[in-house]
């Protein structure tokens, strides 16, 4: 790691051996990285790789269990974000923290108001200072407009100005482009270059590889909680970076014997989802999944996969037609779709898959609260649910002291095995598996793949969404690539390499 940055000056930020554990998981393990002053340093990694935890540690929101943080060569121990701010670190959050009904000036000074003679606020000098900062870094921020009148890009510049106003010399930007349209992204990158030209240091968190390559001076890759590589963006391609992020240490999820039948289990026609801002996040998607078929959807995250899944589950309003077997289910409620035999392994198991503070057997009921063996009429069948939870624990090898423990006490892999077991119960005809092995250990991953293969052989239709290209290629019978909400390519998983798939995902190369 040390050799990656050859510099005579002290690094602006240096992390060594950072480890952070949460009950049941290690979020960060032995993180080591060095950020040079005046650089845009990108940290890339999949969702759940541990980027956010690392940034929270650097910004004083979490304290590491082990390891050392050095800012400009001095060891620091942050107890709160105010310590980090005092050390010259500023954070621009993904979700803006601005009061709409206040002006830019009022938002910027909020919490560190300049005083004049004790009580009065000195707006004059603040306005001057904001103008100065805005001019120095060409941010083009007018202190006297209302924030509610600003567009997203301008709001982000106000956020940046806010941390600069507090004297930050090291800026952390958490997924800053997630909310921006392409032109705004270009503008932001222009601003960032202006900032580093003036000697500021920027830590840029993202999983959008093309953006990272275009703006970063140095890149650190995080996978499964630890730093796996530090690379120079001039020396790598998006494909190589994707491989580093995803890794190839994993057992291969081979599925070669086709079990695909002719019976269509799920058919989707012209499905479109609009976000509140009228943007089309899923745009006219159509596909069929037959019994015994795994349809994989490849794509860089944030290209409409999550919205597509939620539309099929009925959790999000959508236009278009969804048929399960012969029946048009487009207008059905989530519950009715589940009852009709749709299983759902959600992308974020903590948000959508589990009741963390409830025992395992209550989690067994979740999503199946109208079906045997969990209920008898309007009553919960506690004995039945407990018995069946015990069955899942045994069949799916969920490592737990018992079925009365809370779901939060299990490790990610065991939580996921419980979910897989639950969603496979009650004879589903169609299963949505969204990142089924994300954040689980290698052993659980292999087990989950086995279960998916077995269910496929038994005639289950599966929609597989994953960021793990090996998983997609290995498990899928058919592969489609999604980009900006549209299916842009069909790929034959038999003859495609992760490299080819990677370039199809970024819309750069030709699909196989």
């Amino acid at each position: 790691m040390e050799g990656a940055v050859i510099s005579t000056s002290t690094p602006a930020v240096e992390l060594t051996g950072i480890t952070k554990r949460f009950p049941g998981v290690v979020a960060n393990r032995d993180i080591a990285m060095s950020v040079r002053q005046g650089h845009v340093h990108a940290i890339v990694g999949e969702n759940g790789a541990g980027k956010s935890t690392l940034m929270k540690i650097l910004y004083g929101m979490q304290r590491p269990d082990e390891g050392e943080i050095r800012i400009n060569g001095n060891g620091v121990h942050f107890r709160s974000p105010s310590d980090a701010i005092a050390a010259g670190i500023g954070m621009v959050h993904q979700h803006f923290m601005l009061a709409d009904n206040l002006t830019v000036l009022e938002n910027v000074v909020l919490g560190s108001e300049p005083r004049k003679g004790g009580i009065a606020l000195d707006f004059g000098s603040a306005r001057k200072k904001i103008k100065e900062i805005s001019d120095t870094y060409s941010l083009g921020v007018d202190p006297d407009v209302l924030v509610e009148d600003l567009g997203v890009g301008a709001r982000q510049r106000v956020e940046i100005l806010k941390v600069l106003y507090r004297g930050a010399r090291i800026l952390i930007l958490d997924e800053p482009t997630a909310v921006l349209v392409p032109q705004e992204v270009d503008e932001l990158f222009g601003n960032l270059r202006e900032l580093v030209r003036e000697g500021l240091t920027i830590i840029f968190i993202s999983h959008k590889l093309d953006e990272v390559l275009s703006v970063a001076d140095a890149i650190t890759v995080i996978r499964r909680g630890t730093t796996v590589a530090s690379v120079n963006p001039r020396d790598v391609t998006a494909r190589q970076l994707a491989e580093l992020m995803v890794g190839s240490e994993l057992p291969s999820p081979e599925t070669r014997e086709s079990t695909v039948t002719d019976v269509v289990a799920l058919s989707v026609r012209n499905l479109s989802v609009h976000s509140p801002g009228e943007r089309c996040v899923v745009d006219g998607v159509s596909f069929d999944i037959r019994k015994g078929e795994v349809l994989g959807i490849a794509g860089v995250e944030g290209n409409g996969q999550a919205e597509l899944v939620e539309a099929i589950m009925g959790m999000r309003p959508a236009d278009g037609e969804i048929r399960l077997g012969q029946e048009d289910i487009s207008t059905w409620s989530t519950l009715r779709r589940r009852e009709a035999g749709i299983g759902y392994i959600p992308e974020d198991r903590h948000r959508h898959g589990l009741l963390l503070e409830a025992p395992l057997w209550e989690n067994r009921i979740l999503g199946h609260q109208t079906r045997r063996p969990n209920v008898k009429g309007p009553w919960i069948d506690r004995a039945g649910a407990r018995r069946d939870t015990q069955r899942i624990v045994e069949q799916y090898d969920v490592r737990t002291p018992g079925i009365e423990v809370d779901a939060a006490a299990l490790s990610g892999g065991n939580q996921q095995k419980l979910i897989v077991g639950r969603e496979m119960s009650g004879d589903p005809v169609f299963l949505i598996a969204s990142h089924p092995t994300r954040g689980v250990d290698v052993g659980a991953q292999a087990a989950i793949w086995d279960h998916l293969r077995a269910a496929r052989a038994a005639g289950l239709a599966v929609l597989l969404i994953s960021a793990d290209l090996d998983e997609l290629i290995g498990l899928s019978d058919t592969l489609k690539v999604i980009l900006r909400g549209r299916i842009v390519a069909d790929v034959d998983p038999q003859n495609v390499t992760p490299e080819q798939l990677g370039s199809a995902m970024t819309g750069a190369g030709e699909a196989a």
Partner: protein
Amino acid sequence: MNSAESTFTDRLLGRVRLSGLLSLAAPVLAVVFAGAVTSIVLLVSGDPPLETLGVMIDYGTQPRSIGLMLNSATTFYLAAIAVAIGFRMNLFNIGVDGQYRLAALIAAAVGGAVVLPGPLHVALIIFVAMLVGAGWASIAALLKVKRGVSEVISTIMLNAIATSLGSWLLNRERLAVQVGNNIGTKPIPESGQVPGMAIIPGTEYKVFGLIILAVVVGVGYHVLLNRTRFGFDLRATGRSESAAVASGVNVKKMVLIAMIMSGAAAGLIGMPQLLGASYTYSLDFPTGLGFTGIAIALLGRNHPVGIAFGALLWAFLGTSSEILQIHEIAPEIVQIMQGTIVLSVIIAYELVHRYQITAEQRRVSRELASGTPPRAEGASV
């Protein structure tokens, strides 16, 4: 998201369970702390803490006091259950107060206006009360579901409206009649009254017959929440709305139903007093019980048995405070004590919970350090 990240609200409303001895540690800690604060206040005002407590216990354990205590506890219990139904789903029904007052007023008017055979008359009054409470609560529920209005705001405002509506209705041109130098609804005839029960040895004082209603409501609350599909959906929504949605729960419908049930339960609050003692809703009908209910629901952590203890404790303090004046001790000391208990219960649970988290983290760290090699897993924090 793991136990370390349950929100303060989750812990406040008892959705996070403490395990083993720790669940006992919290209330013990709270009572000790509340005792300490009250002692300090007593010392400052120049009264001996231990003797004051002795006086209160002496008086509070006399048979008549026990009767009084059971009667107020009955009312408190119903109030707290009404609040707890909402709490279990993350709904803050601050409007229990307005709901029960309006319900009692209209139920009393209906009860006084009709004559029916015994049990039927009582059933009608109780039914009307539940209906009015539910109806009043449904306004806030509809506003939340249709327009996204926070139920905290709307129920607080509906309390004020209920007060005004109540005084408009309680007028001789409308529902009220002159009773002595008071005005109230037309008294409920004997067929609509629920006789008290002289069940406490050593006193003629009668306990509300509707204490049985409180027991039934408590059992019903427990069964509904823990044994039915509806209760499961309700608790799931309270624990994680996103997971509930993904599992097929119609959250808007749940909000509507839970709020209406909370309002219906609120309608019962005034019944023991109305049918067992006052027989009329007059200007001196007890007020503010909805807010007492909030405190007791917090104290009992929304658990039906916990709430029973909370209601009894509250009622004991209230009843025994009557003796303090005779000993020239300000009875307000009891309100300080009640406030301190609620506050310290909240703080104690928070402290014990934090202790549990760090203990858990230490245990995990130890196991990872000694046994199996650490696995790095993505923790979405």
